[in-house]
């Protein structure tokens, strides 16, 4: 606090209960209509004395990570907001310049750790596009299924955390339970739950186990009721609805100019979805809708995520029904490792194996070529810009994380609101610090 009651030198009369109630009501109405409460601004001098600078985070529970906001407050209203990021900066892009193309897959897990598979797939698709190779149809379909499962897990967790931050704690527990179903599938498919490293450039690490269809179909049966349950728990909760409705409204123009993508962009009317606009992995073969909201407030971001979950379930159903058989790794062994038993028996495969894992050999795209490739991650457009110098490591590997550009609007959005609104906005923005800072 810049000013404490002892040395303020100002005698403040104690207001009566009736006055206080009237002021509160007026302030509440003003706040809803976007007017800064007059009773608050009156305690401030012209030179800003009476304002308080508050650090919100990096260890506040509502920041879900290492986000730090610096709020200048007048009473409980935020006059000025600034954010400081980089607490989780790990130099992923610099690492990318020093690791081979296959090695960096493991780093991509650590970006959005709630849906690591989407990062794996996004990175692999980018390198495959740079090389100009196409993965087998079974691999593409499996990637789509796992991406959509991961997206559901990410969205349902986000909705649960939104409930937890805004006075509906039980939603978090219920959504966590159902999220476990997805994590069971991920564990069965790749052995890890969080840091999956599931894809390879040109394919996936191995084919799915035999009981994979059973797991997915039982998930498809078990999951849909939770959507109704979450809606029931949150939409009938007056505290939750009052705290998110008309809070943190993003206009379509703001969304476009600040580069917002994903559920946040779509909930404010910006009609972008990489899966539809620039199909990859055969997304054009699946029949799905891109939900859109028009309000752009925190409530519509919640509704957007819930509608997207339904569309993801629809994509998984279609992909499971048409899941092709065959190989899961691209058959050009100049870029993807041959099978292990072939390596033991066959000289050609052994040579290919050595050529791929030896440093200085491996995957080498053409000299001087560069490409920007994007996929739709749960948070929005996840892009990779890769420039090659003909060696086995990228010359420049740029990640365009969706959270970075989404978060850019956050300080402008919370200014003029209250601290509790900042919590509502932040939880609906679902900013992942690992991806934001890289």
């Amino acid at each position, binding site marked *: 606090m810049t000013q404490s009651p002892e040395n303020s030198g100002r005698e403040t009369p104690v207001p009566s209960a009736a006055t206080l109630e009237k002021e509160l009501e007026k302030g509440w109405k003003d706040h809803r209509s976007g007017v800064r409460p007059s009773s608050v601004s009156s305690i401030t001098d012209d030179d800003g004395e009476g304002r308080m600078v508050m650090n919100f985070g990096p260890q506040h529970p509502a920041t879900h990570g290492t986000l730090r906001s610096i709020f200048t407050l007048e009473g409980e209203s935020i006059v000025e907001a600034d954010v400081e990021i980089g607490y989780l*900066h790990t130099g992923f892009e610099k690492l990318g310049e020093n690791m081979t193309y296959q090695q960096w897959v493991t780093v991509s897990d650590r970006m959005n750790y709630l849906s690591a598979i989407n990062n794996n797939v996004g990175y692999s698709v980018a390198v495959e596009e740079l090389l100009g190779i196409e993965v087998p149809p079974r691999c593409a379909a499996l990637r789509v299924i796992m991406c959509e499962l991961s997206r559901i897990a990410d969205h349902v967790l986000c909705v649960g955390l939104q409930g937890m931050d805004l006075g509906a704690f039980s939603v978090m527990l219920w959504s966590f339970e159902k999220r476990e179903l997805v994590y069971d599938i991920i564990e069965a498919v790749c052995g890890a739950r969080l840091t999956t490293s599931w894809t390879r450039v040109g394919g996936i690490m191995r084919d799915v186990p035999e009981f994979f269809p059973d797991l997915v179909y039982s998930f498809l049966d078990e999951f849909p009721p939770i959507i109704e349950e979450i809606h029931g728990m949150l939409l009938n909760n007056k505290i939750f609805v009052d705290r998110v409705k008309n809070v943190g409204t993003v206009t379509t123009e703001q969304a476009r100019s600040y580069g917002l993508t994903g559920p946040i962009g779509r909930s404010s009317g910006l009609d972008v979805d990489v899966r539809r606009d*620039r199909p990859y992995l055969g997304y054009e073969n699946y029949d799905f809708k891109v939900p859109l909201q028009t309000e752009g407030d925190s409530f519509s971001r919640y509704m957007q995520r819930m509608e997207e979950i339904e569309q993801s379930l629809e994509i998984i159903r279609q992909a499971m029904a048409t899941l092709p058989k065959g190989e899961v790794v691209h058959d050009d062994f100049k870029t993807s490792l041959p099978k292990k038993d072939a390596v033991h028996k066959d000289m050609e495969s052994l040579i290919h194996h050595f050529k791929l894992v030896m440093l200085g050999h491996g995957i080498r795209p053409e000299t001087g070529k*560069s490409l920007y490739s994007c996929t739709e991650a749960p948070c929005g457009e996840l*892009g990779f810009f890769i420039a090659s110098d003909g060696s086995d490591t990228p010359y*420049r590997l*740029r990640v365009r994380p969706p959270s970075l550009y989404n978060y*850019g609007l956050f300080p402008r959005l919370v200014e003029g609101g209250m601290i509790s609104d900042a919590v509502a906005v932040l939880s609906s923005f679902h900013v992942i610090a690992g991806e934001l800072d890289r």
Partner: protein
Amino acid sequence: MVVEMSAQHPAYDALPADLQSKIFEVFEHQGQVGMRCNAADQRTLLEHFRLSQNYDFLVDVTAIDHLGKDAPERFEVVYMLRALQSNHSFFRLHVWLDERLASLPSVFDLWDSARWGERETHDMFGIVFDGNPDLRRFLMPEDFPGFPLLKDYPLKGRDERRQFPKVVARGDRMVEEEPDPYPTSIGRQMHTPDYIEEVRRDSKPRE
């Protein structure tokens, strides 16, 4: 300069003749088109793409450091533009930037996403975007002296801890010691053959 054309893009075709002459290469890889221009024409071209051709979505801003490579200039700043209205048409604008200058006009007034895109490019490469209201350090600490994505910045770091101000005893007083000057290569005309050879030798991590 000779115009090299290996690809076509509607954004290039729609340029008026005087602006077309400022783009000296249009190249393509896997169906994605990039254009090259010089730093002096960057603002004019981007203004045209935003205001006349309605490329309303700046996907990303980034840069490449070509230290030690056979490139016209050391830095290549990349703008990735998308037009949401006209079928999500996408291209990249690559801008050659002299390391002695290391500054470009900001485009934050055309796209708000450039505010943070340029801020990160500044943080990582030391390139200054004139006019950007907020070019503080972004991912690195605010007192960090180096620019980590420069090619001559080693992966293990440069022992920045010794750059932190030290308090030492001098006589009977404790005084804060000035840190050593930081060895950054930005703007020091280090794009010389000797230095490039040195970097090339040092930047071979595994042998």
